[in-house]
């Protein structure tokens, strides 16, 4: 009797000792609460889809992939502790994230120190270029976006630019980039920065009305602010061009802005191309499983691509430096959001921007703007 217990325990010890963790763990960092949560929820669902597909196809090395999601709350502090937990406690093999640029900037050094590859699906801060050798992203840097703004102003003969900026890392990056990339002869005619979350722009709009300007840059972080800006601008009878970055290009912007959203332009990511079978299949699976996206489908698609590329390289090469080499060796990865590869800085090559226009409450692709 005693012997059998002893044997049994030795056997268990042996089994657990040899087996290691029963799953391959993947981390996610993104805003799951707070104003930016609309974005974080979509990206997490995109990642979940990629993980489930990998598991259905047999997982990695015979093990199932386990996704551990942490809330980065769109700020550096929370993202840093999320990264610490994922790297040191959960021992993940790769991270999808952060989502907001402030999250990625804080998480990248922590993941990098442990030689864990992190791929951000939507962080666009120019500061991330060459920031950490283990940080990749499949979304172009805002350095290119603000150049696209400059080109747009020049093409359309817009000389006097008005801009209202919400005081966040992302919006301030857009503001300074636009100032740097103004075409010759163009000036900033109106430039105000407001507290995050401001919803009352009436007095600023009253002043703007007395200003001579050709185009207004809608530079808020979320629909709650962008929608009010557009609504209150149009309510005072101003008819100038309104254009914003990708933060404007969301499905709930026209719900908040109402008829003021008509004709608003955004230099944003390309749409999920539903005419190609891969894009159509993604859109259908997403909608069947999660319903309508809270921000927009292309953020989910970018996250799906980031996770797919991470899982594939992890499967082929294993984690750390081997995965880094595998990522850099990728040529023309056919994703749902587009076809891309990475440069030596971990920045994406091949993902274009899309000039979008709101028509009848829907964002429509007007023109594809190639990047680099």
């Amino acid at each position, binding site marked *: 009797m005693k012997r059998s217990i002893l044997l049994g325990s030795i056997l268990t010890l042996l089994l657990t000792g040899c087996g290691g963790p029963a799953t391959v763990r993947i981390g996610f960092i993104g805003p799951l609460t707070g104003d930016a949560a609309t974005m974080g929820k979509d990206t997490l669902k995109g990642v979940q889809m990629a993980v489930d597909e990998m598991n259905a196809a047999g997982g990695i090395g015979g093990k199932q992939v386990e996704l551990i999601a942490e809330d980065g709350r769109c700020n550096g502090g929370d993202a840093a502790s999320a990264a610490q937990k994922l790297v040191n406690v959960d021992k993940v093999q790769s991270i999808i994230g952060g989502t907001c640029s402030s999250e990625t900037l804080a998480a990248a050094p922590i993941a990098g120190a442990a030689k864990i590859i992190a791929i951000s699906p939507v962080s666009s801060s120019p500061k991330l270029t060459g920031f950490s050798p283990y940080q990749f992203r499949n979304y172009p840097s805002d350095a290119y976006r603000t150049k696209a703004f400059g080109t747009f102003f020049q093409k359309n003969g817009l000389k006097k630019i008005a801009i209202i900026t919400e005081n966040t890392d992302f919006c301030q990056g857009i503001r300074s980039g636009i100032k740097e990339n103004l075409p010759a002869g163009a000036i900033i005619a109106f430039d*105000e920065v407001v*507290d995050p979350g401001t919803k009352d722009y009436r007095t600023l709009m009253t002043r703007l009305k007395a200003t001579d300007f050709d185009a207004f840059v809608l530079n808020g972080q979320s629909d709650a602010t962008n929608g009010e800006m557009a609504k209150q601008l149009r309510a005072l009878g101003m008819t100038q061009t309104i254009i914003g970055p990708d933060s404007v290009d969301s499905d709930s912007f026209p719900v908040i802005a109402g008829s003021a959203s008509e004709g608003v332009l955004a230099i944003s990511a390309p749409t999920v191309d539903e005419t190609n079978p891969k894009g159509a299949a993604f859109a259908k699976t997403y909608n069947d499983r999660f319903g309508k996206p809270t921000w927009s489908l292309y953020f989910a698609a970018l996250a799906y691509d980031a996770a797919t590329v991470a899982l594939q390289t992890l499967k082929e090469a294993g984690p750390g430096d081997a995965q880094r080499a595998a990522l850099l060796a990728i040529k023309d990865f056919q994703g749902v959001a587009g076809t891309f590869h990475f440069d030596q800085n971990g920045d994406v090559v091949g993902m274009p921007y899309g000039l979008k226009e709101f028509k009848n409450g829907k964002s429509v692709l007007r023109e594809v703007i190639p990047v680099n």
Partner: protein
Amino acid sequence: MQLLLNALIAGSFAALLASGLALVYGVMGVFNLALGQMALIGGYVCWWCVAVAGLPLPVAIVCSLVVSLILAWISFDLFVQPFQRRHRFLPIVTTIALSMLLDGLILIVFHEEPRSILASGQRLLHIGDAILSVEQLVLICVTILFLSVLVWVLTSTPFGRKVRATVQHPEAATSLGMNGPLLRRSLFILSALCAACGGIYVGIDQNLSPTLGMHLTVKAYAAVIAGGRGSLKGAILFAFIIALLEQLAIGLPWFGVYIPAGYQGTVALLVIVILLLWKPEGVFGSRLRSS
């Protein structure tokens, strides 16, 4: 002119919340740091009734007020009453807990997207060189009417006298046959209803987003403290004054330059701080200590 109208729009909204806070904090001395969240829930329920259930706006407003009433009743029994008796500062902690709970509840029930109660385009009126929408005009008029009735009820009716008596000296009032606990409860509920009206206001005029709650509470406190604790009229007046200061701060050039818009709130609160240095009890506050 447009600046004055802008201040009136922002002020009416702030006044609703400030009056709610004046009732519960100013008059009753109870701290309620979940007031902003209660306002948001009022707004969100109204949004839900209009956008999801498809009810007409007046019915939706009534529904929203009923839900707010129930919420306030439960909150009072669970988070305020049991603690208030032990120490008047305890509800600071419990209502902060309540505000976090409600923040979470809002996220779960109404999700993260910003919500706007009236999605259709606004009809615009031109008054001189200023522009105002019909919705805003109605909102401002209804708010001013509502607040006037509120002030009248508390100062000139038997109910108002009973409330004030209970607040000034609970034991004496009870010994004279007044139902103290009931009056306190109704005051708390009334304050939550004012807040809910504020939430509906912002949902119609602008939009509701889940992180707005604490911001609303802080602004309401500023108005109540500047107006003088215990003075409902003072709180309402100062909600309008703060709104006007905020618009003037950034709407007019001061010595040739505009103050950056980011300092809008700071400038208004700075004026309030200076005012309090001069009159620490608030402009309409009495020097007598209340309960």
